[in-house]
Each structure stands twice: as C-alpha cells, then as structure tokens.
C-alpha cells in the first residue's frame, strides 16, 4: 500500500514515527545489555541518520552520546563507499580516530537501511563497555599518554557482512577484554538495537514509499534549520570572549561570535594535548551542539538541520582536538568542561538566561579485581551524582547536557562485585557561584560503600 503523497501530515506522521523507532531501539538495547552501566546508569544513546549520516531522529539516551552517532556514521561512509555496502551489513567503531568520537570503551554499531536498492537511512547506537583491554581494568587510565594503552581499537570495520557475522572480528574482540561474557552480551544488545531500527524503518517505507520517506526526513532537517535561524534572530549579535582557570592551573579560552546566520565557537587558543584528558574535535563539536541548543531552543528537534548555523574552530594538537596517537580515556571531563565554558561565556554576556553551573564532572569511579566467590574478574564502572545548577526562574531551567543521571542502586551492588553499600545520603554544599547573579548550590549524593565480602 504505497502512495506518493508529500502532504505535511504524512511528513509529521513519518517524523514522529522515526522518534518512536529510535525509542524502541533504546528500549531493546537497554533490556538486553549485560552491564549495569548500560541498563541501569543508561550510558547509551540511539538514533537514526539519513543516507548521508546526518542525524534525523535523535532518539533516546544521553544527548552527548546521541551526538556521536552522526559523526561515527559519516566516518564509516568515508571508509566504506556506498557501492560496496549490501543490505544486512553492519559496521562498528570504537576508535576516536575512526569515527568513534569519545574513547575506546564506547562501541558504535551502525547499519544501512536499504529501499529500492538504495540506502535511505542508517540506524546506530552507542554504549559504554566496561572493559576493552588496555593497561588497567576498566581500560581508562589516567596515566595513559597514547591510545595504544587504552585497549583494542575497532577502526570502523564491517562486523556483519550481509547478515553473516564476521567471526574473526568477534573472536578478536572476545579475547581483548577482561570481561568476555559482558562484552559479548553488550555487543549483541547493540546489534539487536540497530536491527530492530532497520526492521521498523522498512515497515514505514513499505507503507509510505521510499520517496515520501526521504522527503519527510529532508523536510524535518529544514524544520530544524528554520527553528535554529528563528532563535538566532532573537539573540544580540556580537563577539563574546571569555576565559577561565581550570583545576590543573591551565587557562581555557573561548570566543563566541553570533552573526545573523551563524553561531561561531572559537576554541583555537588553548593548551596542547597531554595525558588522557583530551577530546577529539568531534567530541568538542558535541559540546558545542548541546550548548547551542540549550542556549537557543531546547524544544526544537535536535537534528542535523538544527545545527547547520553552528561553526566550530579548533587547533589540531590541542586538548580540544587531539591528534593520533594521543590518549582519550577521560575525554568526558574535557567535553563537560567545554560545555560549561560555552555556557559560562554566554551567561556572562546574557545575564538571567541560563542556570548556574553544575557539578561538571562524571565523577567516574572504577573498581576492579577478582570476585572472591566466583573467581571471575569484575569491574565496576559508575558515575556518581552531583548537583545541577539552580535557576532563578522556570524559564531558566533548561534541558542541559544530560550526563548519566543515575547511579547503580545500592540494593543490587552486593550481587555484582564485592562492593557493599550500607547507606547513601545527599550532602548539601554551598559554593560561591562563579556565574554572576546566581550562587551555585552543589549537592552531592554520596554512597558510603565498603569493599569486601559481606
């Protein structure tokens, strides 16, 4: 029952349908994952890209993760030309130098969706894996200076060829981890997620036809751009510089320039890369996208069209644009700080618009070792929680970065590793606000835990 109709209602139905598909991908992956960091902390993201890799439906999960998907898919397209791809192919990357964006722990499976012999969309997801080998349990080493010490690299390779798994890659993955069972389960959960997305999109295309389907995506992108431009039109134009000292004594500098049709973030004048607290350029682009959206229009669709007016300038070799073989284990701290830096710059020049700063860290906790009961290796990786910046008014409360917001529930810890929690509590902590007008109130939710057998 295929009809060619380009009426706006059909477009709406397809666009809403795509979001529902991305949500279903999230639900399927979450439910089948093995690791608490995925199913409980929800350290994952799903999305649907158009044929060229622009994000079309931003799905569910951590916004900072959803932002990875289009960049990963575009890199896969560069490496694997369209004419070499078949239905049922599935690609994967975890390598920031090959579209992986973040660090080696985050694996991105992605697959094309074919209609009438052409690629019309791509489904993708990303989730954090607890261990991909490397120097230390959990794979993220604060001492690493090169990516080679951070685990196995999967450089945008074909994992499944026309539906047939490439056993070699799976075998290589399974032996390069301290947690093979978990890795296997989390990998297949990711694959199940993108496959369900493909299946649902094919059903939509069967109903509406591929021509209407692709036209609906293009229309959705244009809507995103229209909304971004409409928001830009209301913002005072100008050049806004800002700088601030970091905890390690470095000075981070930023210049935001807002013109009639562009929002330019210049981060070129910043320190050289060092250690493992560096980010890829694409990672910083995500921070820029999130800050841009938080500042302009939080209700708009977060698609490729919306981000068209955004421009980012970085310097290769800097902490915000790491070059090979720099390490990226703790990229997240850099991304979060840049996000905060952009908002702080804007808050400084646009008082009363943005909320106060947040705790601006993952507070990642990594504990690993041999389980005394089972003898198997375990790794606990979990973020801790902190306070979100308060807002002076309802309007100021924005959907911001969306870090992982949940921690592993205490009643379940004893089952996992050897960590047992007796209690948790919220600890209010006043800190002088660094943003004008608003004092930052930073709560901290601490779990008092003790190691060892109960």
């Amino acid at each position: 029952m295929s009809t060619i109709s380009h009426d706006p209602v059909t477009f709406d139905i397809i666009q809403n349908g795509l979001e529902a598909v991305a949500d279903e991908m999230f639900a399927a992956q979450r439910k089948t994952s093995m690791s608490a960091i995925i199913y409980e902390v929800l350290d994952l993201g799903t999305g649907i890209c158009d044929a060229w890799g622009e994000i079309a439906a931003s799905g569910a999960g951590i916004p900072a993760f959803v932002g990875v998907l289009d960049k990963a898919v575009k890199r896969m397209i560069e490496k694997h030309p369209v004419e070499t791809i078949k239905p049922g192919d599935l690609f994967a990357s975890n390598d920031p130098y090959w579209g992986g964006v973040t660090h080696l722990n985050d694996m991105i499976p992605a697959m094309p969706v074919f209609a009438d012999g052409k690629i019309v969309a791509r489904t993708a997801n990303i989730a954090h894996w607890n261990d991909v080998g490397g120097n230390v349990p959990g794979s993220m080493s604060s001492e690493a200076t090169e990516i080679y010490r951070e685990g196995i690299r999967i450089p945008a390779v074909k994992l499944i060829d026309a539906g047939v798994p490439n056993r070699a890659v799976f075998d290589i993955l399974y032996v390069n981890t301290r947690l093979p069972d978990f890795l296997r389960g989390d990998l297949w959960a990711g694959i199940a997620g993108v496959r369900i997305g493909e299946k649902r999109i094919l059903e939509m295309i069967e109903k509406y036809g591929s021509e209407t389907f692709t036209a609906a995506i293009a229309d959705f992108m244009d809507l995103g751009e229209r909304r971004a431009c409409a928001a830009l039109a209301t913002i005072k134009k100008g050049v806004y510089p800002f700088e601030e000292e970091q905890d390690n004594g470095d000075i981070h500098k930023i210049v935001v320039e807002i013109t009639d049709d562009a929002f330019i973030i210049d981060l070129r004048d910043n320190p050289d890369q060092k250690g493992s607290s560096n980010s890829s350029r694409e990672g910083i682009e995500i921070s820029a996208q999130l800050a841009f959206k938080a500042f302009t229009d939080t209700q708009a669709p977060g698609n490729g069209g919306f981000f068209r007016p955004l421009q980012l300038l970085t310097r290769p070799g800097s902490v915000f644009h790491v070059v090979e073989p720099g390490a990226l284990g703790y990229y997240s701290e850099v991304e979060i700080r840049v996000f905060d830096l952009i908002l702080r710059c804007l808050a400084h020049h646009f008082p009363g618009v943005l909320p106060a700063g947040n705790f601006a860290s993952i507070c990642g906790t990594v504990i690993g070792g041999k389980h005394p009961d089972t003898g198997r290796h375990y790794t606990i990786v979990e973020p801790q929680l902190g306070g979100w910046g308060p807002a002076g008014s309802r309007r100021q409360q924005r959907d911001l970065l969306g870090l992982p917001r949940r921690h592993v529930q205490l009643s379940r810890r004893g089952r996992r590793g050897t960590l047992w929690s007796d209690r948790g509590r919220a600890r209010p902590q006043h800190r002088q606000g660094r943003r004008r007008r608003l004092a930052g109130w930073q709560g901290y939710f601490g779990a008092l835990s003790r190691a060892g057998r109960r």
Partner: protein
Amino acid sequence: MAICLIHAYANPAHEKAVQAEIARLWPEVATVASHQITREWREYERTSTTVLSAYVQPTAQRYLERLEAGLQQEGYEGRLYIMQSNCGVDSLASTKAIPITMVESGPASGFWGAAELGRIIGEPNVLALDIGGTTAKCSLIQNGRVTIKTDYWIERDRRSAGYPIMVPVVDPVEIGNGGGSIARVDDFSKLHVGPQSAGAMPGPAAYGRGGANATTTDANLVLGRINRDYFCGGSVTADMASVDSALGTLADKLGVSQQEAARGIVRIANANMVNALKLVSLNRGHDPRDFTLVVFGGGGAMHGVALGQELGVKKVVVPRGAPVFSARGMMMSDLRHDYFVTRLMDGTDRSGLQALVSEIAGHATEQFGKEEVAPDAVKIQPLVKMRYRNQEHSVEVPLRTDLLDDASMAILIEDFHAIYEREYTYRLDVAVEIVGIHVIASAEVGKLEMVAQQRTSAGLEDAIKGRREVDYATEGVCEATIYNAELLEPGMSFTGPAIIEDPGTTIVIHPGNRVEIDDFGNTQIHLRS
C-alpha cells in the same frame, strides 16, 4: 509516614522494628513500610512507591470509609470489593492499607473486560484500546492473559522523568490523545493533536460552551463521521458555528481548507494512537495479524477501524455498551493477588525454585483464607523471572507443572530461550539465572456473565436511519448507510461504508469492511471482506 530500608526486600526485620518504634513514639500517625507493598529489590523504585502510597493514604482511606458507610446506610448487604490495577479486586481493608494499588484500576478493568470478551467470542489474543476524552490507553492480551508488571511510572514522557510505582499494574501504554484533544499549529506551521485537552469544560467547540479550540471531536463532526443532528445521542445541539470558527482559524494557519485541516487532525490523532498500539504489540515481538482489536470508551469505535487497518489486525470488535465497557469489566474480575519476590538462583536450581514457589503459594492461600476463600478455590499460576547471567531485565516464563523434575526444568529453560528470542531477536549460549518469581493467585467471587441477546423478527432495514456523505480521511468521501445501534440484532450483517450510531458512541465502518452482530450484541468488523 513512609519507611524504606535498602535491603528490606530480602529481610524486613529492621523495617518492622522502625515501624513499631514510630507507632510507639507517634501513635496518631499512619505508617507504611516498603515490605508491605513489595519484596523486590531496587530501593529507588521501592521508596518512591512507599512515599506515594503514604501520600494518598489519608485521602483514600477517608473516601473508602465514606463509601462503605454510605452503602451500608442505603441497605447494601453484599461484600464490597475494590478494583485494583492488576485486573483483580481486593478487600476494602487491604486497599485502605495500601491504596496505591488502585492507581490504574480504571484502565485495568477495561482491559480485563476485553480479555473476558475475547474468551467468550473465541479470540484469546486481543489488543485492547480505550479512547476517552483526554487519553487513549492500550494493552496486549495474549492467550487470554493480561500482562502484569511492576515497572509502572506515572507522569513520564520524553521530557519528564516521572515517578516509579512498583506495584502490580496491568501493562498499559498511554498517550495524550482522545476526543477532547486540542489541535494546534505551532510557529513553524506544524500541526499537533494533544496532549492538551479541552476536557469536559469547556469541551470541544461543538459543545457550544465557549471552547475556542478545534478538537478531534470537532474534526469528526466536520467530516460527517459524527452526526451533527445526533450529537451525544441527541442530547446536545452541535454548535457548528463555533466549530467553523475554531477549525477555520486552524485551517488559515495551515493554508488549507477546513475539510483538509479536519482530515489532518484525524490522521495525526490516528498516527499517535497507532504508535502507542505498536509499543505494546510489534515492539514486543508480537505480530498484529494474530490479534483482534477490541475498542471501547466513548471514542474507541470512531477510530478503531482506521487503527486496525493500519496495524493489520484480524478484525475489530466493538463490545456492546462500549462507552461504559470498563464498568462491565470490573464486574467480571476475580479476587486476585500478584506476588513478586526477588531471589537470585541458578537456572538449574530445581529445589531452590520448588521451595520458593511452595512458600509463596502457601502464603497466597493463607492470605485468601483470611478473606474467607477455601484453599481449593484458589488458583495459583507461578511465572519464573529468568535472564541470561549478568543481564538486568528478566522475562517471565510460565511454569507449566506444579512439581518440578529435571525434565520440566529443561522445558523451563527452553521456554525462556524462545520467549527471549521473540522479544529481542537473538539468543545466547550462556548460563541462565532465575531472579525470582511472580505468582498470580486468584479466586472467583461471583461475576457478571455476558448473556446472549434476544432476536426479534425485525429486519436489517428497520435499523437503517438514512444515508449521508462521510469523509473517511484516508479513503476519501463516500456515501455511507447509517444504522441505529439500538435496533441491530444478533445475526445481522452488512458491509461498509457505514456508520452505526449509538447514544454513547459512533462506530465508523470503512468501505469494504464486513460487519456482523454476534450473539452477545457485539459489533464484529472484518477488515477484508
């Protein structure tokens, strides 16, 4: 006051001690402890549930006590049961202690009614859809069984985290679309329907009570799907001037005709509802072609056929008395308790599982005993919650036998793999774990049975009210035959395009549908004639 300790799911001794101490120090205050509500792990959900229960308890208790006293005063001599969210009823005393169990009792009674209806008409696989004024709710019934879960959240959507309620709730998917849903055009020329609703006051523009917004009901009037001369069973004069003005504003913003705007509203409302129906069916690995769509509530019959066609279900059934079907479902329910217990063990632990099932079954029988139900009248259905080792979410696998041996354990594991694969597309060759059990205990307490309707010598033509042009939104404008629902009798059959008008609802029959009135007066619509 709500009490929740981290590990009380495993051992409630400390919670009980805290509760006793509070009672000693502050006897006037009502307390509720998490172990009274659930024995599952996850302290966040458990705490949220306990707090919400304590929050509604004083109000609920006052209400229930007034209800009981009022009924006694009026001379009611029967037993009073309260509908629960798990599709069963419970005693007044239990409900007063933990009132949060009533949270979804309304939709639950409708879904249970749909399951019972399916049993009577020989359709054990049912998609139940209840469309009211503000929301539409749906649930899937497989092999006559409703799905009861404990991961229910209220006020949760894409922009709000909501609050978990960890009590047994029939698995519903709810969306903000109903007859009163407001259609609006945003600054970027996008048409939206719901979740804002015109409610009962002012209601749709057609009510003529000052509603200036076009709603789904108004669109249905403009398209001739609802009879403007028989609005709300003739009890309300449709204010078409007000409808024209509301829809006209909307159409101008979109740059289309009123007719076109009305079609858009109906199509978007349908698409929203189809997405919800897919969530409970396709998205969980079920094929809609195996299911019968049962639609009820005031708006169910209006959209049912379009939704059924979109999903590709077997047929659509509009039960007799569809607008008040939930009330009927309530009268068909059993006394029922759902027990969820977390206890981790290996998938091969036969004796451990046997002990757990016996313990909970014994506990259930004892609890029913307190409500004066004999042990042999209690039906026990154990479901085992299983998963691959190290996984989080478990799936429920029905235990096929009472007594476990090695063979039945092997069947249990194989059933797990099959159910898991249906839902998640793959299976793994790794160890299987048991996380706990879900035991359904029920007993019949005298229920309303559906009875066959009388046939008279009246013919189908007696039921015909006339003909009029109806815009089906997807299939265009057709001249439809209009039937009076009150004059339709078992055995009558006809084909669409048609409209069946009932004082409480309108059944829209699309072109090519074949309609049969069954023995019980339900309207059965076959989508492909």
